[in-house]
Protein backbone atom coordinates (compact mmCIF):
# COMPACT_ATOMS: atom_id res chain seq x y z
CA UNK A 1 0.00 0.00 0.00
CA UNK A 2 1.45 3.37 -0.99
CA UNK A 3 1.82 6.09 1.63
CA UNK A 4 3.31 8.62 -0.76
CA UNK A 5 2.56 10.15 -4.11
CA UNK A 6 4.19 12.81 -6.24
CA UNK A 7 2.51 15.69 -8.04
CA UNK A 8 4.10 17.32 -11.10
CA UNK A 9 2.81 20.82 -11.75
CA UNK A 10 3.32 23.93 -13.85
CA UNK A 11 5.32 25.42 -10.99
CA UNK A 12 7.09 22.61 -9.22
CA UNK A 13 7.12 19.05 -7.97
CA UNK A 14 5.35 18.20 -4.73
CA UNK A 15 5.58 15.18 -2.46
CA UNK A 16 2.43 14.15 -0.61
CA UNK A 17 2.72 11.81 2.38
CA UNK A 18 0.17 10.00 4.49
CA UNK A 19 0.26 11.20 8.07
CA UNK A 20 -1.60 9.68 11.00
CA UNK A 21 -5.03 10.61 9.73
CA UNK A 22 -4.55 12.80 6.69
CA UNK A 23 -2.44 13.31 3.62
CA UNK A 24 -0.36 16.45 3.34
CA UNK A 25 2.39 18.02 1.26
CA UNK A 26 5.76 17.21 2.79
CA UNK A 27 8.11 18.69 0.21
CA UNK A 28 8.13 21.23 -2.64
CA UNK A 29 10.93 20.95 -5.17
CA UNK A 30 11.80 23.01 -8.24
CA UNK A 31 9.33 25.72 -7.24
CA UNK A 32 8.66 27.92 -10.25
CA UNK A 33 9.79 25.37 -12.82
CA UNK A 34 7.50 23.65 -15.29
CA UNK A 35 7.56 19.95 -14.36
CA UNK A 36 5.54 18.12 -16.96
CA UNK A 37 5.66 14.63 -15.49
CA UNK A 38 6.99 12.52 -12.66
CA UNK A 39 7.96 8.85 -12.79
CA UNK A 40 8.79 6.57 -9.89
CA UNK A 41 10.70 3.38 -10.68
CA UNK A 42 9.54 0.68 -8.24
CA UNK A 43 12.61 -1.48 -9.01
CA UNK A 44 15.12 0.89 -7.42
CA UNK A 45 13.16 3.90 -6.12
CA UNK A 46 14.59 6.29 -8.71
CA UNK A 47 12.52 9.36 -9.46
CA UNK A 48 12.48 11.19 -12.77
CA UNK A 49 11.19 14.70 -13.40
CA UNK A 50 11.12 16.11 -16.94
CA UNK A 51 11.16 19.89 -17.32
CA UNK A 52 9.82 22.08 -20.07
CA UNK A 53 11.79 25.27 -19.65
CA UNK A 54 10.07 27.02 -22.52
CA UNK A 55 13.11 29.03 -23.49
CA UNK A 56 15.82 26.51 -22.77
CA UNK A 57 14.14 23.34 -23.99
CA UNK A 58 13.27 20.00 -22.45
CA UNK A 59 15.45 18.72 -19.64
CA UNK A 60 15.40 15.66 -17.42
CA UNK A 61 16.32 15.34 -13.75
CA UNK A 62 16.76 12.21 -11.64
CA UNK A 63 16.79 11.57 -7.91
CA UNK A 64 18.23 8.39 -6.44
CA UNK A 65 17.36 9.30 -2.85
CA UNK A 66 13.57 9.60 -2.97
CA UNK A 67 13.59 13.28 -3.90
CA UNK A 68 16.13 14.58 -1.37
CA UNK A 69 18.55 15.63 -4.11
CA UNK A 70 18.36 15.83 -7.88
CA UNK A 71 20.78 15.84 -10.80
CA UNK A 72 20.23 16.74 -14.41
CA UNK A 73 20.77 13.78 -16.72
CA UNK A 74 20.69 13.72 -20.52
CA UNK A 75 17.27 14.09 -22.06
CA UNK A 76 16.48 12.02 -25.14
CA UNK A 77 17.76 13.60 -28.35
CA UNK A 78 16.53 13.09 -31.87
CA UNK A 79 19.27 12.04 -34.29
CA UNK A 80 20.26 14.09 -37.33
CA UNK A 81 17.96 13.67 -40.30
CA UNK A 82 19.36 11.41 -43.04
CA UNK A 83 20.97 13.23 -45.96
CA UNK A 84 18.33 14.29 -48.46
CA UNK A 85 15.41 13.21 -46.30
CA UNK A 86 12.47 15.58 -46.35
CA UNK A 87 9.95 14.96 -43.57
CA UNK A 88 6.32 14.83 -44.57
CA UNK A 89 4.11 17.66 -43.38
CA UNK A 90 2.22 17.08 -40.14
CA UNK A 91 -1.44 16.44 -40.97
CA UNK A 92 -3.60 19.55 -40.53
CA UNK A 93 -0.61 21.83 -39.99
CA UNK A 94 1.04 21.33 -43.37
CA UNK A 95 4.50 22.00 -42.05
CA UNK A 96 7.39 19.56 -41.79
CA UNK A 97 7.87 17.72 -38.54
CA UNK A 98 11.05 18.79 -36.79
CA UNK A 99 13.34 16.11 -35.42
CA UNK A 100 13.63 17.93 -32.14
CA UNK A 101 12.41 17.07 -28.65
CA UNK A 102 9.31 19.10 -27.83
CA UNK A 103 8.02 17.31 -24.74
CA UNK A 104 8.71 14.27 -22.58
CA UNK A 105 5.15 13.05 -22.38
CA UNK A 106 5.54 9.77 -20.57
CA UNK A 107 8.13 7.54 -18.96
CA UNK A 108 7.82 3.94 -17.85
CA UNK A 109 10.18 1.47 -16.24
CA UNK A 110 10.96 -1.74 -18.09
CA UNK A 111 10.15 -5.08 -16.54
CA UNK A 112 11.64 -6.51 -13.37
CA UNK A 113 13.83 -8.79 -15.48
CA UNK A 114 15.53 -5.87 -17.26
CA UNK A 115 17.00 -3.56 -14.60
CA UNK A 116 17.96 -0.14 -15.85
CA UNK A 117 15.60 -0.22 -18.82
CA UNK A 118 13.36 2.81 -19.21
CA UNK A 119 10.98 3.82 -21.95
CA UNK A 120 10.25 7.44 -22.78
CA UNK A 121 7.45 8.71 -25.00
CA UNK A 122 7.85 12.15 -26.51
CA UNK A 123 6.51 14.80 -28.79
CA UNK A 124 6.92 14.90 -31.77
CA UNK A 125 6.34 11.15 -31.70
CA UNK A 126 9.63 9.44 -30.89
CA UNK A 127 9.84 6.55 -28.45
CA UNK A 128 13.18 6.35 -26.67
CA UNK A 129 14.76 3.57 -24.66
CA UNK A 130 17.47 3.69 -22.02
CA UNK A 131 19.28 0.63 -20.74
CA UNK A 132 21.18 2.43 -17.97
CA UNK A 133 18.59 4.21 -15.83
CA UNK A 134 18.52 7.25 -18.11
CA UNK A 135 22.22 7.91 -18.55
CA UNK A 136 21.82 7.55 -22.32
CA UNK A 137 18.84 7.26 -24.63
CA UNK A 138 18.28 5.81 -28.07
CA UNK A 139 15.43 6.52 -30.45
CA UNK A 140 13.47 3.39 -31.33
CA UNK A 141 14.02 3.36 -35.09
CA UNK A 142 11.62 0.56 -36.06
CA UNK A 143 8.71 2.68 -34.83
CA UNK A 144 10.14 6.03 -35.89
CA UNK A 145 10.91 4.75 -39.39
CA UNK A 146 7.52 3.09 -39.82
CA UNK A 147 5.78 4.81 -42.76
CA UNK A 148 2.56 5.10 -40.80
CA UNK A 149 4.34 7.09 -38.11
CA UNK A 150 4.59 9.99 -40.52
CA UNK A 151 0.80 10.00 -40.72
CA UNK A 152 0.37 10.69 -37.01
CA UNK A 153 -1.51 13.87 -36.40
CA UNK A 154 -1.22 16.64 -33.84
CA UNK A 155 -3.35 16.93 -30.74
CA UNK A 156 -3.83 19.92 -28.48
CA UNK A 157 -0.22 20.69 -29.28
CA UNK A 158 1.21 21.09 -32.75
CA UNK A 159 2.94 17.71 -32.78
CA UNK A 160 1.94 14.10 -32.36
CA UNK A 161 3.17 12.36 -29.25
CA UNK A 162 3.36 9.16 -27.21
CA UNK A 163 1.65 9.65 -23.87
CA UNK A 164 1.03 6.10 -22.65
CA UNK A 165 3.49 3.23 -22.26
CA UNK A 166 2.32 -0.11 -20.86
CA UNK A 167 4.98 -2.73 -20.21
CA UNK A 168 3.34 -6.13 -19.79
CA UNK A 169 4.14 -7.21 -16.22
CA UNK A 170 4.32 -10.81 -17.41
CA UNK A 171 6.40 -10.19 -20.55
CA UNK A 172 8.80 -7.25 -20.70
CA UNK A 173 9.17 -7.62 -24.47
CA UNK A 174 5.49 -6.84 -24.88
CA UNK A 175 5.01 -3.09 -24.79
CA UNK A 176 1.88 -1.18 -25.79
CA UNK A 177 1.81 2.54 -26.40
CA UNK A 178 -0.92 5.12 -26.84
CA UNK A 179 -0.41 7.87 -29.41
CA UNK A 180 -2.17 11.16 -29.82
CA UNK A 181 -2.99 11.12 -32.57
CA UNK A 182 -2.06 7.70 -33.85
CA UNK A 183 -3.96 4.97 -32.00
CA UNK A 184 -2.41 2.04 -30.15
CA UNK A 185 0.82 0.33 -31.19
CA UNK A 186 2.23 -2.92 -29.86
CA UNK A 187 5.60 -4.61 -29.90
CA UNK A 188 6.10 -8.19 -28.74
CA UNK A 189 9.83 -8.28 -29.36
CA UNK A 190 11.09 -5.44 -27.21
CA UNK A 191 10.68 -2.80 -29.89
CA UNK A 192 12.21 -4.51 -32.92
CA UNK A 193 8.86 -4.51 -34.71
CA UNK A 194 5.58 -2.72 -34.15
CA UNK A 195 1.98 -3.39 -35.04
CA UNK A 196 -0.78 -0.81 -35.27
CA UNK A 197 -3.88 -2.09 -33.57
CA UNK A 198 -7.18 -0.61 -32.52
CA UNK A 199 -9.97 -2.36 -34.41
CA UNK A 200 -13.24 -0.98 -33.11
CA UNK A 201 -11.99 2.40 -32.03
CA UNK A 202 -14.03 5.20 -33.53
CA UNK A 203 -13.04 8.77 -34.26
CA UNK A 204 -16.29 10.67 -34.55
CA UNK A 205 -14.42 13.83 -35.44
CA UNK A 206 -13.22 12.38 -38.78
CA UNK A 207 -15.07 11.96 -42.10
CA UNK A 208 -17.32 8.90 -41.94
CA UNK A 209 -15.11 6.79 -44.21
CA UNK A 210 -12.09 7.26 -41.96
CA UNK A 211 -13.67 7.05 -38.53
CA UNK A 212 -12.45 3.52 -37.87
CA UNK A 213 -8.91 4.01 -39.23
CA UNK A 214 -6.73 2.83 -36.32
CA UNK A 215 -4.04 5.40 -37.10
CA UNK A 216 -6.27 8.45 -36.61
CA UNK A 217 -7.57 7.48 -33.17
CA UNK A 218 -6.99 10.14 -30.56
CA UNK A 219 -6.22 7.99 -27.56
CA UNK A 220 -6.02 10.24 -24.51
CA UNK A 221 -4.82 7.60 -22.05
CA UNK A 222 -4.13 3.86 -22.28
CA UNK A 223 -3.80 1.63 -19.20
CA UNK A 224 -3.29 -2.11 -18.77
CA UNK A 225 -4.43 -4.33 -15.91
CA UNK A 226 -1.38 -5.70 -14.10
CA UNK A 227 -3.11 -8.94 -13.09
CA UNK A 228 -4.69 -9.54 -16.47
CA UNK A 229 -2.56 -7.89 -19.17
CA UNK A 230 -5.04 -8.80 -21.90
CA UNK A 231 -7.35 -6.13 -20.52
CA UNK A 232 -6.78 -2.51 -21.52
CA UNK A 233 -8.84 0.58 -20.90
CA UNK A 234 -8.73 3.77 -22.93
CA UNK A 235 -10.03 7.24 -22.44
CA UNK A 236 -10.31 8.48 -26.00
CA UNK A 237 -11.17 11.87 -27.42
CA UNK A 238 -14.32 10.25 -28.65
CA UNK A 239 -15.26 8.34 -25.52
CA UNK A 240 -14.38 5.28 -23.48
CA UNK A 241 -13.09 1.96 -24.82
CA UNK A 242 -12.07 -1.41 -23.42
CA UNK A 243 -10.18 -4.35 -24.87
CA UNK A 244 -10.11 -7.87 -23.43
CA UNK A 245 -7.90 -9.39 -26.11
CA UNK A 246 -4.61 -7.60 -25.66
CA UNK A 247 -5.67 -4.42 -27.47
CA UNK A 248 -6.45 -6.27 -30.70
CA UNK A 249 -10.08 -5.14 -30.68
CA UNK A 250 -11.98 -2.54 -28.73
CA UNK A 251 -15.50 -2.06 -27.49
CA UNK A 252 -16.86 1.44 -27.16
CA UNK A 253 -18.64 2.19 -23.90
CA UNK A 254 -21.49 4.60 -24.58
CA UNK A 255 -24.16 6.53 -22.74
CA UNK A 256 -22.26 7.03 -19.50
CA UNK A 257 -23.42 9.98 -17.42
CA UNK A 258 -22.46 12.73 -17.00
CA UNK A 259 -20.08 12.37 -19.96
CA UNK A 260 -17.91 9.88 -21.81
CA UNK A 261 -15.33 12.59 -22.48
CA UNK A 262 -12.22 13.07 -20.39
CA UNK A 263 -8.51 12.56 -20.43
CA UNK A 264 -7.53 10.11 -17.73
CA UNK A 265 -8.33 6.54 -16.78
CA UNK A 266 -6.99 4.15 -14.14
CA UNK A 267 -7.49 0.40 -13.94
CA UNK A 268 -7.52 -1.70 -10.79
CA UNK A 269 -4.21 -3.59 -10.66
CA UNK A 270 -5.88 -6.83 -9.55
CA UNK A 271 -9.37 -6.59 -10.98
CA UNK A 272 -9.58 -6.00 -14.74
CA UNK A 273 -13.28 -5.21 -14.51
CA UNK A 274 -12.74 -2.18 -12.27
CA UNK A 275 -11.68 1.17 -13.71
CA UNK A 276 -12.01 4.85 -12.88
CA UNK A 277 -12.59 7.82 -15.19
CA UNK A 278 -12.89 11.55 -14.50
CA UNK A 279 -15.53 12.87 -16.89
CA UNK A 280 -15.83 16.38 -18.23
CA UNK A 281 -18.17 18.05 -20.67
CA UNK A 282 -17.33 17.08 -24.23
CA UNK A 283 -15.38 18.52 -25.78
CA UNK A 284 -15.16 22.22 -26.51
CA UNK A 285 -15.82 23.13 -22.89
CA UNK A 286 -13.62 20.64 -21.06
CA UNK A 287 -14.76 21.29 -17.53
CA UNK A 288 -16.84 19.26 -15.08
CA UNK A 289 -20.48 18.93 -16.04
CA UNK A 290 -22.60 21.41 -14.07
CA UNK A 291 -19.50 22.50 -12.14
CA UNK A 292 -19.36 19.22 -10.18
CA UNK A 293 -16.19 17.16 -9.91
CA UNK A 294 -16.99 13.45 -10.02
CA UNK A 295 -15.26 10.14 -10.66
CA UNK A 296 -16.95 7.40 -12.64
CA UNK A 297 -16.19 3.86 -11.49
CA UNK A 298 -17.17 0.55 -12.98
CA UNK A 299 -16.86 -2.86 -11.33
CA UNK A 300 -18.31 -4.86 -14.21
CA UNK A 301 -16.12 -4.11 -17.19
CA UNK A 302 -17.96 -0.98 -18.20
CA UNK A 303 -21.52 -2.32 -18.28
CA UNK A 304 -22.52 -0.01 -15.45
CA UNK A 305 -20.90 2.96 -13.71
CA UNK A 306 -21.26 4.60 -10.33
CA UNK A 307 -20.72 8.33 -10.14
CA UNK A 308 -18.63 9.01 -7.04
CA UNK A 309 -18.75 12.46 -5.49
CA UNK A 310 -18.37 12.18 -1.69
CA UNK A 311 -15.72 14.68 -0.64
CA UNK A 312 -15.43 16.26 -4.09
CA UNK A 313 -16.61 19.82 -4.82
CA UNK A 314 -20.17 19.87 -6.09
CA UNK A 315 -20.69 23.49 -7.01
CA UNK A 316 -18.78 25.93 -9.16
CA UNK A 317 -15.83 23.60 -9.64
CA UNK A 318 -14.12 23.85 -13.02
CA UNK A 319 -11.26 21.45 -12.50
CA UNK A 320 -10.01 19.54 -15.53
CA UNK A 321 -7.91 16.44 -14.94
CA UNK A 322 -5.18 15.77 -17.48
CA UNK A 323 -4.27 12.33 -18.79
CA UNK A 324 -1.56 11.65 -16.22
CA UNK A 325 -3.47 13.37 -13.47
CA UNK A 326 -4.82 10.25 -11.73
CA UNK A 327 -3.15 7.14 -10.33
CA UNK A 328 -4.07 4.06 -8.32
CA UNK A 329 -1.74 2.26 -5.94
CA UNK A 330 -0.78 -1.44 -5.94
CA UNK A 331 -3.79 -2.42 -3.83
CA UNK A 332 -6.45 -0.70 -5.87
CA UNK A 333 -7.71 0.93 -2.69
CA UNK A 334 -5.84 4.20 -2.80
CA UNK A 335 -6.34 6.67 -5.61
CA UNK A 336 -5.25 10.24 -6.08
CA UNK A 337 -5.92 12.83 -8.72
CA UNK A 338 -5.08 16.46 -9.38
CA UNK A 339 -6.55 19.18 -11.55
CA UNK A 340 -5.77 22.19 -13.68
CA UNK A 341 -7.14 24.32 -10.86
CA UNK A 342 -4.47 23.02 -8.51
CA UNK A 343 -6.63 20.72 -6.43
CA UNK A 344 -5.54 17.29 -5.25
CA UNK A 345 -7.81 14.64 -3.84
CA UNK A 346 -7.01 11.24 -2.41
CA UNK A 347 -9.17 8.24 -1.61
CA UNK A 348 -8.43 5.27 0.61
CA UNK A 349 -11.56 3.29 -0.21
CA UNK A 350 -11.38 2.81 -3.95
CA UNK A 351 -13.04 6.12 -4.69
CA UNK A 352 -16.08 5.84 -2.41
CA UNK A 353 -14.92 8.96 -0.58
CA UNK A 354 -12.25 11.59 -1.12
CA UNK A 355 -10.25 13.99 1.01
CA UNK A 356 -8.84 17.25 -0.26
CA UNK A 357 -5.07 17.54 0.05
CA UNK A 358 -4.81 21.00 -1.49
CA UNK A 359 -6.85 23.45 -3.50
CA UNK A 360 -4.03 25.87 -4.14
CA UNK A 361 -1.33 24.14 -6.12
CA UNK A 362 -0.29 25.20 -9.62
CA UNK A 363 -2.00 23.38 -12.51
CA UNK A 364 -1.38 19.66 -12.07
CA UNK A 365 0.08 17.63 -14.93
CA UNK A 366 0.74 14.29 -13.28
CA UNK A 367 0.08 12.35 -10.09
CA UNK A 368 2.06 9.18 -9.40
CA UNK A 369 2.18 6.91 -6.36
CA UNK A 370 5.51 5.65 -5.03
CA UNK A 371 4.95 1.94 -5.54
CA UNK A 372 6.98 -0.96 -4.28
Amino acid at each position, binding site marked *: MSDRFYVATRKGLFTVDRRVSKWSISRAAFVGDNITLVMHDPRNGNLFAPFNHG*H*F*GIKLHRSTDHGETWNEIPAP*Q*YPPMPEGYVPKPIPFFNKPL*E*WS*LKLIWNMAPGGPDEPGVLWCGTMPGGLFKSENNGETWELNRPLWDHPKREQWGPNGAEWPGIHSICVDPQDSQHVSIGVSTGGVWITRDGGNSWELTGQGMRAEYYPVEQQFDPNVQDVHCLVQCAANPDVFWVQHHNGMFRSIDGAASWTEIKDVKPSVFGFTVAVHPKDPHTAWFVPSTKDEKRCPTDGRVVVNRTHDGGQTFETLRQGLPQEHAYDLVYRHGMDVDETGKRLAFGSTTGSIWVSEDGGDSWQTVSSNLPPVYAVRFAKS
Partner: protein
Amino acid sequence: MATVRFTRNIQRHVECPTREVSGFTLREVLDEYFRENERARGYVLDEQGKVRQHMVVFIDGDLVRDREKLSDRVEPNSVIDVIQALSGGKI
Protein backbone atom coordinates in the same frame (compact mmCIF):
# COMPACT_ATOMS: atom_id res chain seq x y z
CA MET B 1 38.21 37.43 -30.22
CA ALA B 2 34.46 37.89 -29.86
CA THR B 3 32.82 38.34 -26.49
CA VAL B 4 29.91 36.01 -25.69
CA ARG B 5 27.46 37.05 -22.98
CA PHE B 6 24.48 35.07 -21.71
CA THR B 7 21.19 36.02 -20.13
CA ARG B 8 21.16 36.01 -16.36
CA ASN B 9 18.17 33.67 -16.39
CA ILE B 10 20.11 30.80 -17.88
CA GLN B 11 22.61 30.91 -15.02
CA ARG B 12 20.08 29.38 -12.63
CA HIS B 13 20.20 26.18 -14.67
CA VAL B 14 23.69 26.11 -16.13
CA GLU B 15 26.60 28.43 -15.46
CA CYS B 16 27.51 30.45 -18.55
CA PRO B 17 30.16 33.05 -17.74
CA THR B 18 31.06 35.75 -20.24
CA ARG B 19 34.04 34.63 -22.29
CA GLU B 20 36.11 35.71 -25.25
CA VAL B 21 36.30 33.11 -27.99
CA SER B 22 37.45 33.01 -31.60
CA GLY B 23 35.52 32.35 -34.79
CA PHE B 24 34.38 33.97 -38.02
CA THR B 25 30.73 32.89 -37.90
CA LEU B 26 28.22 32.52 -35.11
CA ARG B 27 28.46 28.74 -35.50
CA GLU B 28 32.21 28.79 -35.03
CA VAL B 29 32.02 31.09 -32.03
CA LEU B 30 29.30 29.15 -30.24
CA ASP B 31 30.96 25.81 -30.99
CA GLU B 32 34.13 27.17 -29.46
CA TYR B 33 32.26 28.37 -26.39
CA PHE B 34 30.31 25.15 -25.90
CA ARG B 35 33.41 23.01 -26.36
CA GLU B 36 34.27 23.82 -22.77
CA ASN B 37 30.67 23.92 -21.57
CA GLU B 38 28.89 21.14 -23.41
CA ARG B 39 25.84 21.11 -21.13
CA ALA B 40 25.03 24.71 -22.00
CA ARG B 41 24.79 23.87 -25.72
CA GLY B 42 21.41 22.17 -25.26
CA TYR B 43 20.01 25.19 -23.45
CA VAL B 44 20.63 27.45 -26.45
CA LEU B 45 20.55 25.15 -29.48
CA ASP B 46 18.32 22.17 -30.21
CA GLU B 47 19.69 18.76 -31.15
CA GLN B 48 19.81 19.76 -34.83
CA GLY B 49 22.02 22.73 -34.01
CA LYS B 50 19.36 25.40 -34.54
CA VAL B 51 18.75 28.28 -32.18
CA ARG B 52 15.90 27.22 -29.89
CA GLN B 53 12.54 28.65 -30.85
CA HIS B 54 12.33 30.94 -27.84
CA MET B 55 15.96 32.01 -27.69
CA VAL B 56 17.42 34.97 -29.57
CA VAL B 57 20.98 35.90 -30.39
CA PHE B 58 22.33 39.37 -31.16
CA ILE B 59 25.64 40.19 -32.79
CA ASP B 60 26.69 43.75 -32.01
CA GLY B 61 23.07 44.59 -31.30
CA ASP B 62 21.67 43.10 -34.50
CA LEU B 63 19.34 40.12 -34.37
CA VAL B 64 20.88 37.03 -35.92
CA ARG B 65 19.24 36.20 -39.23
CA ASP B 66 20.33 32.62 -39.88
CA ARG B 67 18.93 30.70 -36.91
CA GLU B 68 19.46 27.31 -38.57
CA LYS B 69 23.01 27.27 -39.89
CA LEU B 70 24.28 30.17 -37.74
CA SER B 71 26.21 31.54 -40.68
CA ASP B 72 26.03 35.20 -39.62
CA ARG B 73 29.43 36.86 -39.76
CA VAL B 74 31.27 37.68 -36.53
CA GLU B 75 33.94 40.40 -36.41
CA PRO B 76 37.05 40.05 -34.24
CA ASN B 77 35.71 42.47 -31.63
CA SER B 78 32.05 41.56 -31.86
CA VAL B 79 29.84 41.22 -28.81
CA ILE B 80 27.36 38.36 -28.93
CA ASP B 81 24.37 38.36 -26.61
CA VAL B 82 22.41 35.15 -26.01
CA ILE B 83 19.09 35.88 -24.33
CA GLN B 84 15.64 34.42 -24.03
CA ALA B 85 12.89 35.77 -26.25
CA LEU B 86 9.84 37.41 -24.78
CA SER B 87 7.90 34.53 -26.32
CA GLY B 88 8.04 31.15 -24.65
CA GLY B 89 7.63 32.36 -21.11
CA LYS B 90 4.31 30.77 -20.31
CA ILE B 91 2.76 32.02 -17.09
